[in-house]
């Protein structure tokens, strides 16, 4: 022990005696000390100074400890059952999947081990999890990742392990190996076989999409994630008898119309999703992808009717040439994607059967449908024929909202999910004839009910309310009721301006939508003011695509108001913005097309023709063939 340490007992004794002593006493003691033991005096003075300042050790360590223990406790244990966790494979919805291997070395095996996410444990999630495990236990097919093991961990949380598929998601597999149409069709036949097998075991997957299929080294596709799968009631005489979906956690673009409205879901919904997967694998884009990128745009397009033949749109990168899609494949996909479940293929095996016929060059069993596929263009833009389909749009957007919740923190996420669920349930209650006073409700009635609810309810969460106001406003716009649309969007804008700073994308988007609605009902002054306001709010920063949308709106307003020069100016500025950000050709093509239309109206035919040609060139350059 050195001299410094040896002095501590005395120093502590002196400190304890003097720290609370009256000033006189302290000064006297220090005075005596400085004469006899100057070094000790200096250390004591320093301690007294430290007492008055210095960090609060306890508070700092406590805060660190509490955070650390919380994050440590959230970790997955290194070992679960007989399995050692290697790394996380993915996380979504309520589950978390880890790669794991035998910890006891009994034999070598890798599994995908699934747990419920710590922040998602609720009685409903536990029940859903148990159902998934039960469903997997019924399935034993080379096209489905099988259940390997399961149990309950030290904290009483359930887990199960599936066969680990070391492979690539289906779309990437096709693109990376540059597969031709026939090879892609063969892979989808494999998927259809697995789905048909599941249907025979009375299991409906309900969430088929390309990312839920992994293809291994031997080109065997394997179906994953039965997280929202349903068991058809075992006493149903016919497996096609539908069952009720509860979880409205689906993927926009793949969910069938009847699934979106919460109607009974049977094998036909899986057939629809298989059709959408075929569409994406072959054409390189989902059905309705031409109608817009946002879930809302896709939803509205889906609400208006069945998609155009898949070979008609531009082939995107990764797809196969459109010429290979005409004829058989167009018909097969269109048949799977029919809105009316009864007019789709009867099951996944029937779809696989026609795909095999196509490969063999035999005639298909599917019938060309005169009423359906081709007439979409002639269906009035402003009429939603089937209320259920309008509801599908609402549900789909709500689903998208739900999906976007993933990025929020757990508490906020749960609140928003609850608000959206309550909103939807409210609408479906309205749709229930027992509550509707016996009369049947039109799409308009349902949207009115939605508007009332979203205006008054959801008090808890302004973000969700603003988003849903946008959905309802756009639904009114799609019905052609611009006055109602403007009314709802005005409410939304006011709320967004209270909630977000000026220039926030959600605030700007509200201005743009309101501007469009005002323009539609010929309130040009107001519309112009709003579009200019959106541009001003964006300032010099802001998202380029938003700025382009604001300029497109401004151009459309001026064109409608007959001020073609101003319209041309707006479209030119929009093109400049898009050029600067290297936007994709389709967005640019739309801008050149709008520019051409405005010039056409001024009889500037040469310029107009040049711009139409440019639009055409851009569209064609997007398609590789």
């Amino acid at each position, binding site marked *: 022990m050195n001299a410094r340490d040896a002095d501590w007992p005395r120093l*502590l004794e002196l400190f304890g005696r003097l720290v*609370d002593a009256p000033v006189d006493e302290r000064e006297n003691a220090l005075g005596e000390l400085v004469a006899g033991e100057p070094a000790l005096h200096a250390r004591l003075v320093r301690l007294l100074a430290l007492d008055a300042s210095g960090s609060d050790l306890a508070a700092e360590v406590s805060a660190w400890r509490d955070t650390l223990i*919380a*994050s*440590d406790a*959230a970790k997955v244990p290194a070992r679960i059952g007989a399995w050692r966790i290697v790394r996380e494979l993915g996380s979504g919805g309520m589950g978390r999947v880890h790669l794991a291997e035998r910890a006891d070395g009994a034999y070598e095996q890798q599994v995908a081990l699934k747990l419920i996410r710590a922040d998602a444990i609720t009685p409903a999630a536990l029940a859903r999890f148990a159902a998934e495990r039960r469903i997997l236990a019924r399935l034993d097919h080379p096209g489905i990742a099988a259940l390997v093991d399961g149990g309950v961990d030290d904290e009483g949380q359930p887990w199960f392990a599936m066969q680990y598929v070391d492979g690539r998601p289906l779309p990437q597999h096709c693109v990376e190996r540059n597969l031709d149409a026939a090879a892609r069709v063969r892979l989808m036949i494999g998927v259809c076989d697995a789905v048909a097998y599941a249907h025979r075991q009375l299991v409906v997957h309900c969430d088929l999409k390309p990312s839920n299929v992994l293809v291994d080294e031997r080109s065997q596709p394997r179906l994953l994630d039965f997280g929202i799968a349903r068991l058809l009631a075992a006493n149903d005489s016919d497996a096609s008898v539908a069952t009720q979906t509860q979880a409205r956690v689906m993927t926009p673009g793949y969910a069938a119309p009847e699934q979106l409205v919460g109607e009974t879901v049977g094998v036909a919904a899986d057939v629809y999703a298989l059709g959408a997967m075929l569409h994406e694998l072959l054409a390189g884009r989902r059905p309705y992808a031409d109608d817009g990128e946002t879930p809302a745009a896709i939803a509205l397009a889906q609400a208006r009717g069945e998609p155009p033949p898949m070979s008609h749109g531009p082939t995107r990168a990764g797809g196969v040439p459109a010429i290979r899609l005409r004829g058989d494949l167009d018909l097969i996909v269109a048949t799977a994607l029919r809105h009316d479940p009864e007019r789709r293929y009867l099951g996944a095996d029937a779809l696989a059967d026609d795909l095999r016929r196509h490969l063999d060059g035999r005639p298909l069993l599917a019938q060309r449908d005169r009423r359906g596929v081709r007439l979409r263009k002639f269906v009035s833009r402003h009429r939603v024929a089937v209320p259920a389909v309008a509801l599908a749009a609402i549900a789909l957007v709500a689903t998208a909202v739900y999906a976007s919740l993933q990025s929020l923190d757990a508490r906020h996420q749960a609140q928003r999910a609850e608000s959206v669920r309550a909103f939807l349930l409210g609408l479906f209650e309205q749709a229930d004839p027992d509550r509707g006073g016996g009369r049947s409700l039109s799409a308009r009635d349902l949207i009115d009910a939605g508007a009332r609810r979203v205006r008054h309810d959801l008090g808890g969460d302004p973000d969700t309310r603003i988003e849903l106001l946008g959905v309802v406003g756009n639904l009114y716009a799609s019905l052609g009721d611009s006055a109602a649309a403007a009314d709802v969007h005005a409410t939304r804008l006011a709320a967004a301006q209270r909630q977000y700073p000026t220039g926030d994308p959600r605030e700007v988007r509200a201005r743009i939508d309101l501007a469009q609605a005002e323009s539609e009902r010929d309130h040009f002054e107001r519309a112009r003011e709003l579009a200019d306001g959106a541009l001003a709010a964006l300032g010099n920063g802001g998202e380029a695509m938003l700025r382009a949308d604001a300029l497109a709106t401004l151009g459309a307003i001026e064109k409608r108001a007959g001020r073609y020069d101003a319209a041309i100016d707006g479209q030119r500025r929009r093109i400049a913005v898009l050029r600067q950000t290297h936007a994709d050709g389709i967005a640019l093509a739309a801008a050149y097309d709008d520019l051409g239309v405005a010039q056409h109206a001024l009889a500037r035919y040469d310029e107009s023709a040049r711009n139409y040609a440019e639009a055409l060139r851009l569209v064609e350059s997007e398609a590789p063939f």
Partner: protein
Amino acid sequence: MTTPQAASHDPLYAAAYAELHRLARRERRRANAPATINTTALVHEAWFKLGRGDLGTRVARSDFLAIAAHAMRQGLVDHARRMNADKRRHVTVTLGEAEREPAAPVAMLELDDALRRLEGTDARLARIVELHVFCGLEFREIAEAEGISERSVFRLWRSARVFLLDELAA
């Protein structure tokens, strides 16, 4: 009173450590769990279970608290050591949200060393630091456990604190 050194060999030490860990995980796994855990509340809950003799041993509350505080200190120091080792090895780890860990506000390893020197000088001061800093106990609770007045605890804490701050700066 069990000394901290002896405590780490006590079966109760392991039991307290395991129980605290289990409780922390349970808290964290509740839906909507906050980003921090009230560790002090967990210590009280663990005492409630272990102290009643659920493990076949009855133990004085003051002994249990000393053990829990020491276990907590050990855990945090071990953790800081691992974090340092990772940093030295320049490990790039991609961490999920749950695993993102805050850096220690004070140099934990140096604090541990200083605390060991305090143990050599005055074991009671060191014990008070463990209870207050690592277990998060209030002066009133420490006073009860130590059988002295709250005012005395406060004065002793101030002595211990300046000792540690001085040693950390040395």
